């Protein structure tokens, strides 16, 4: 088994303007941005991605675009449904971060596994769970992918190898380590991807898992979706060493810093990590810098960041960037775009209808599936 060098695979960009938005750590303290500066950054972003487009086949490119648009439109409708009271509890939207789930999951085989946190709609959809079942789960209906018992934060799809939807910050990280342990135990070359926010990096679960994964060479890829805010607390206010990718050094893992607004950069880095995991059972840490355009959850007024900061990232919207490039490179024309939007609209409409008409779980479901071998209180 080959040992990998401990140093990060790719130097992490330092926080200066030339390296683009991914390097912004501090929230902007001014409310205005120079439009010229913004245009310049956007241009850079486009050019950076264009280099990669030719390396990926057209079918994959279009599937990724389709999935990103599906997640976006699905969640826009979910937000509406939430305000109408059709969705209860907590609802954490993924809007702005779509490139992370879509780019990383585009590298997997159907027999690989993925686990994530409570911000899980995008991952479920990108793993292939039907939008009908995801929406019905948000509605708390029997037709939901967790039979209406998990809700927004606990989407599961065993058939698609999507292992949840976990709502204790960092809780999914040891679980994923165990899934990777099991695949290695069975001598398969399956890979496990686990997602968490940067706030989870401060949890013991993260550190305990990375230590075991490298110690025992487990094929797990730890993906920190660094959206720069743990609820309302900025990274800088919560982490003494805010360079997440560097945390890997403490455990001897390979790591990379990745621009999460560029779906192809995300895919590229994940491909490298997947190869390490499949061939040599080696874990990796990817810090994927991203940004959520919406609040932490539907009830978040978002007073902790400036409009200017949000707009700056919206300018780098991963769907917009990718879409523009696909047009410029002639991968897709206007008609092609319209067709994707239409298809997505149809799917989301159908999901809303399915969720609306799916029945509520039967009252007796309260006491089912507590145990695999039922005990008296369940009978």
């Amino acid at each position, binding site marked *: 088994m080959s040992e990998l060098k401990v140093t990060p695979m790719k130097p992490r960009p330092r926080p200066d303007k030339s390296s683009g938005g991914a390097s912004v750590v501090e929230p902007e303290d001014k409310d205005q941005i120079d439009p010229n500066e913004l245009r310049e950054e956007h241009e850079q972003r486009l050019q950076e991605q264009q280099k990669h487009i030719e390396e990926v086949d057209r079918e994959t490119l279009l599937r990724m675009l389709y999935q990103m648009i599906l997640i976006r439109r699905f969640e826009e409708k979910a937000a509406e449904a939430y305000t109408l009271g059709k969705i209860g509890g907590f609802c954490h939207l993924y809007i702005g971060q779509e490139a992370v789930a879509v780019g990383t999951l585009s590298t997997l085989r159907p027999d690989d596994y993925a686990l994530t946190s409570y911000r899980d709609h995008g991952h479920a959809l990108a793993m292939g769970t039907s939008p009908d079942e995801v929406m019905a789960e948000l509605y708390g209906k029997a037709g939901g992918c967790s039979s209406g*018992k*998990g809700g927004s934060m606990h989407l599961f799809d065993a058939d698609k190898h999507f*292992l949840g939807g976990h709502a204790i910050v960092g809780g999914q990280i*040891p*679980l994923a380590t*165990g899934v990777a342990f*099991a695949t290695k135990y069975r001598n398969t070359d399956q890979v496990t991807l686990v997602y968490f926010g940067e706030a989870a990096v401060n949890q013991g679960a993260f550190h305990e898992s990375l230590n075991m994964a490298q110690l*025992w060479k487990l094929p797990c890829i730890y993906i920190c979706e660094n959206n720069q805010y743990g609820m309302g607390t900025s990274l800088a206010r919560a982490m003494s060493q805010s360079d997440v990718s560097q945390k890997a050094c403490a455990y001897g893992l390979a790591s990379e810093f990745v621009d999460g607004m560029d779906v192809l950069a995300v895919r590229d880095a994940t491909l490298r990590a997947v190869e390490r995991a499949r061939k040599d059972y080696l874990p990796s840490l990817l810090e994927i810098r991203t940004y959520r355009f919406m609040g932490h959850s539907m009830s978040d007024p978002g007073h902790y960041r400036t409009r200017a900061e949000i707009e700056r990232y919206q300018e780098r919207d991963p769907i917009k960037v990718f879409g523009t490039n696909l047009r410029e490179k002639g991968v897709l024309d206007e008609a092609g775009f319209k067709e994707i939007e239409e298809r997505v609209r149809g799917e989301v409409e159908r999901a809303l209808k399915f969720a609306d008409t799916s029945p509520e779980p039967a009252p007796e479901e309260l006491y089912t599936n507590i145990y695999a071998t039922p005990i008296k209180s369940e009978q």
Partner: protein
Amino acid sequence: MAVITMREALNQAMREEMKRDEGVFLMGEEVAAYQGAYKVSKGLLEEFGDKRVIDSPITELGFAGLGVGAAMVGLRPVIEFMTFNFSILATDQIINSAAKMRYMSGGQFKIPIVFRGPNGSAYQVSSQHSQALESWYANFPGLKVVMPSTPADAKGLLKSAIRDDDPVIFLEQERMYGNKGEVPDGEDFLVPLGVADVKREGKDATIVARSLTVPLALKAAEELEKQGVSVEVVDPRTIRPLDIETIINSVKKTNRVVIAEESHPFCGVAAEISAQIMERAFDYLDAPVKRVSAADAPMPYAKNLERLALPDVERIIKAVREVAYLD
């Protein structure tokens, strides 16, 4: 039938189940090269190799969660806590992950995992190393909680726990590892979860005891016999699912109950059993149910204070005489 120690019985159970099923593995602190802090896993590394008997770093939350993840995709982990006091660090994974996964996924996953190790007091190890945590874990639907009191039960119940498709909290007792008893021969010997055992029959009073308090209750019953009181000793063996029927049947026969336990009384298992007796057999009671629990205080180090903190034969005898209105 061979006479073996509790330690050997547990060891046999793991050895047999590991032979039977490739998916069973043992992970925990010092379980492999050191042969177990209490030697329960003696010889297993040699027999099954380091793929299946794994020394973990001291990282309870981490390896408990790893076990749950491995169980989600079909392995049967046996996770040893050096003592259950250390499981407190892992409660997030036990309670939030293991106990809930099946339910909140709408039944898509089984979590066939056993968390095992010594629970309760040892000898003068003070507050942080002497806790009996069964009431914690028994409080959560989704977990099963097992507490054997004899080598035979220990073996038969652990084998059942490993074969069970749900997460099982298997609570041993450090003071009991050396206790000897007859254990039926044969690899097919199983004790089902959720079935109580009447350890001694009697007609004047019932003692419901578990784990460490079972031998104490039996000794108390012997003494009381000499005093003309016939005592029945019921050992539920599994706290969840609780075989309340057997307890109720005994209450209907004796009409007087003492519940002996090693854990703190407040919100404890004895309180739960007492409430269920009240709900289901109130009319059969000739006296209020009495509890003999550990002190409602952290465990002290000093030998004399430690003795005062724990249930003993004298306190159990006194309680039985009280419910029988003999004093």
